[in-house]
């Protein structure tokens, strides 16, 4: 069964001190319902992507809590939390997609949410996405893993710290016109280069901020979508793959096998090739991640990711604009919400509602990664 997205909504991302975990979702969820033009009674299931409410706000069992708080308790619909680190949103989207594609449900919500700013050290919590026993124990955290990957990429392929900086600069520039973005301010290469090291060679401005935020999308089968919606966006494929958990077990740490596997499968299912993708939201939790994504998604050859950013190919106006929302880097990384937020932004683009950051696109790709790449979710959307 063909699946369409008929409504999207997101909160602003950032340090939202006045919002609670619960109110965050309500705002995103109701926007999505309003956007879809439905009241909520039609929803048959709700999938919530969330990485670590347990550690961030001391609350588990959040799917039922959120369904209740969104006023859905009377209907008693199944509410399912999906956790795959910062790929939780993408994974929740995929479960929701499968529920509709299979014909088991007609109309469902997929949402992502994270409230990080109540925790004393959000990056410490995010680092529970990597191997506690063999990576954290020896002193590595998530930035350290990406830094080790970045240094090898630089050593092997001649990628420069400035290339990585260019990715941060591009994404900040894109975020200026995104009303939901955390950082709506341009930065310069010098700003990035002079920011302190977090984990050499990655600097503060190579890292996405950890943010509060929630995003939601309404998925429906084609028939309902056509009835309810003038601008349905179709999900042509949604695939997930996994890899060795710790980098010490990966044959080639410069290739995210899960990204390669998920994207190849998505291209095959959708019959859409890398060259047919007109816009992408990719997981730039660290600038090096976006650069390697260019390669693993097939936008550039292995080792040539830096060429794309140097030549402006991934800027708005380039061959394949990447992270026109500002990406995780500038829009903000609300962990479990990010995978859904990517879909929201691509839908806005495919509908032609992106305003000053509008790109002319037929086919869009979202890449959501968990931790240091043990999980990857790829979605291909088309008008």
């Amino acid at each position, binding site marked *: 069964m063909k699946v369409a997205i008929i409504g999207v909504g997101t909160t602003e991302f950032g340090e939202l001190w006045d919002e609670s975990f619960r109110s965050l979702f309500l705002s995103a969820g109701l926007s999505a319902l309003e956007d879809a033009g439905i009241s909520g009674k039609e929803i048959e299931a709700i999938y919530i992507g969330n990485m670590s409410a347990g550690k961030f706000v001391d609350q588990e069992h959040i799917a039922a809590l959120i369904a209740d708080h969104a006023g859905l308790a009377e209907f008693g619909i199944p509410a399912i939390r999906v956790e795959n680190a910062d790929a939780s949103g993408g994974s929740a989207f995929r479960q929701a997609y499968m529920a509709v594609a299979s014909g088991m449900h007609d109309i469902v919500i997929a949402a992502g949410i994270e409230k990080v700013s109540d925790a004393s050290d959000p990056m410490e919590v995010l680092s529970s996405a990597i191997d506690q026993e063999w990576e954290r124990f020896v002193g590595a955290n998530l930035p350290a893993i990406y830094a080790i*990957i970045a*240094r090898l990429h630089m050593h092997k392929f001649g990628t420069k710290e400035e290339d990585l900086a260019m990715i941060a600069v591009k994404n900040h520039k894109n975020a200026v016109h995104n009303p939901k973005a955390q950082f709506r301010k341009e930065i310069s290469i010098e700003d990035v280069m002079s920011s302190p090291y977090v984990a*050499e060679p990655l600097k503060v401005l190579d890292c996405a901020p950890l943010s509060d935020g929630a995003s939601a999308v309404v998925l429906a089968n084609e028939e309902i979508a056509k009835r309810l919606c003038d601008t349905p966006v179709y999900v042509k494929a949604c695939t997930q793959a996994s890899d060795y958990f710790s*980098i*010490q077990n990966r044959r080639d740490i410069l290739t995210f096998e899960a990204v390669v596997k998920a994207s190849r499968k998505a291209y095959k299912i959708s019959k859409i090739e890398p060259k047919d993708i007109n816009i992408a939201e990719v997981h730039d939790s660290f600038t090096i991640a976006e650069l390697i994504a260019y390669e693993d998604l097939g936008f550039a050859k292995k080792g040539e990711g830096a060429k794309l950013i140097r030549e402006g190919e991934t800027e708005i106006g380039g061959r394949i604009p990447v992270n026109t929302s500002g990406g995780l880097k500038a829009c903000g990384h609300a962990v479990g919400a990010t995978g859904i937020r990517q879909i929201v932004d691509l839908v806005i683009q495919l509908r032609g509602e992106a305003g000053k950051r509008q790109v002319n696109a037929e086919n869009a790709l979202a890449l959501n990664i968990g931790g240091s790449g043990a999980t990857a979710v790829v979605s291909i959307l088309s008008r």
Partner: protein
Amino acid sequence: MVPRIWRRIRYRYNVIASYCESCGSYYYPQREICPKCRRRGIVKEVEINDEGTVLSYTVVNGRKIALIEFKNGTRMLAEVCGDIEIGSRVKKAFRRYGEDGEAGIIYYGTKFVPII
């Protein structure tokens, strides 16, 4: 919080890899099952005692964390004490890794030092 079981296990003090007698693959850390040939019970313990090569590294929180490769192809993430570059040769050293705040227990593990 360091789960109790991590502290008292032998592999924290020796660098023990697994060797699959069926397909000849080595794994670090140890595995009970070989992901290549999916066979169990044919995985033997082997200690890694030789020198390693720094594949890549970072400096985080003032500590140097490197991905080190050994002759048998296994790799290990570990702290290195001393100056290194990609390609540097390193050898094992037994060092204190940290302290469990709650329990006040000091735990140790394998670190590496450059071979000069």
